[in-house]
């Protein structure tokens, strides 16, 4: 568990959902990835062309660029359990 996590959070403006997603993400990272993560926030309103590269459709979208493979989590990240599963920090449970 020593890998570094490079995370990108795509949003469009300071919407309530975007603000929520960012604070949820910070909290999860502090708890589970302390000292080994970076978060880059990409605002598509300022840079719409950046949406193409990561195939952004829904917002907010969290993209785990590292470690590979790339993972995508959409939504305001309010369900911590599912965010951890999405980031491969917790095994997926058969539901």
């Amino acid at each position: 568990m020593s890998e570094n996590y490079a995370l990108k959070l795509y949003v469009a403006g300071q919407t309530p959902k975007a603000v929520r997603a960012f604070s949820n993400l910070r909290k999860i990272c502090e708890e589970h990835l302390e000292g080994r993560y970076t978060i880059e926030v990409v605002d598509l309103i300022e840079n719409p062309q950046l949406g193409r590269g990561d195939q952004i459709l829904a917002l907010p979208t969290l993209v785990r660029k590292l470690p590979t493979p790339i993972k995508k989590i959409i939504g305001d990240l309010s369900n911590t359990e599912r965010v951890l599963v999405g980031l491969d920090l917790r095994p997926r449970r058969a539901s």
Partner: protein
Amino acid sequence: MASQKFARAELRKSPTGIPGLDDITNGGLPKGRPTLVSGGPGSGKTLLGISFLVNGAEQFAEPGVLLTFEENAAELAEDVRSLGYDLESLIARKKLIVDYIHVDRSEIEETGEYDLEGLFVRLDHAIAEIGAKRVMLDTIETLFGGLQDTGILRAELRRLFRWMRDRGVTSVVTAERGEQMFTRQGLEEYITDAVISLDHRVEEQISTRRIRIVKYRGSTHGTNEYPFLISRDGINVLPVTSLLLEHEAPQERVSSGLKDLDAMLGGKGYYRASTVLLSGTAGTGKTTLAAHFVNAACARGERCLYFLFEESPQQFLRNMRSAGIDLTAWVKQGLLRFHADRPNRHGLETHLLEMHKAVESQNPSVVVIDPITNLMAAGTENDVRAMLTRVIDYLKTRGVTALFTSLTTPAHDLEATEAMISSLMDSWVLVAITEENRKRNRWLYVLKSRGMPHSNDVRPFVIGDKGIQLLAVERPARTRKAGRKSR
């Protein structure tokens, strides 16, 4: 049609540039609004949308954005290149943007609330980049497979279509045909301005593509199913003719090729630009009668086009020569041309297109289709009737006099079998053979001929070395006058 003109002024249209489609939609798709195009796999909906974008960019100075959820841009460009569309060149000239959105459920984890603002931002950015006026979404329903929260998805789609309307872009939204609903996800609930349905059916081993305008708010439109073709030139909706009965009705008459038959037809023959049906059982002389008609037209210096669905041109010419009608000179002068084809070689819509092409290149004043019954083998009864209506409409608009021969099966009532097409015909001449005293006698009569007094005689005739010769009617002297000239 005052109401139609009014509607046209009210609603602005965005021409598709697809031959025929702009006719049946009275000018194109509703400008600044979305149009739903629904159809099964391989029905041609993607191609229709791309034609709309390409023609918009090339012919109407309206750049376009293609947002595809289906294939990637390179594959798409490859697919439509065979139809003569060079997407890469359009992209390079900033007349087209193709944005590929890939959605894979297995790659996406959903947690909490989200929206599709990313899609809006990308679309908005693309529209602004080239000043796009047209948008195509192909096939947005794919999102239902990629995202779990259909509640959000539905709300966002509703918002998307409203947003596109506000943005003033004319859009084509493709969708898969659904089992219960018109589209798999019921998109018709969101897009109510115009709905087009595409269909690709195989009936009796013959494939036919059809297009229908299901709905077009605020505009008149053709309501039929129209056959269409996907050929090397792209989509072609047939016919390229009017929906209304508004052909010219010339007073001019043309000879049937036989003086005696002309006499039975009000003394002057058929009307120009009318339709004539020659029906009868096998071997009664229908083709010979048609040959007389063509011979007379060529002798007047008019161009003729003869569709043969039973024999080759050589065979036809030989047979007619033996009956005393030599048409070879007209062929040499280019006045008479043939178009021979096997009826079951293509579907009906291909036949229709071939006929259009042949008529356009020969520009004839007389067309013969011999026999029309063989063509009927190429489709179901309704299809054939629909196709014939179009052929006739097309020929009448061009002022062509058309003669159709029809083979009657002896088991059926002579007059009943053609019920399907007879109403489309202006004149109907019936030829038959009866056996009497071990001799086969030929006879003909005019069953109907619109707009002229015609004879009610049943005239015997012979086919000799000068073609058809009508014989005098034998009848008791008393009734002779009474039966002569009635309508």
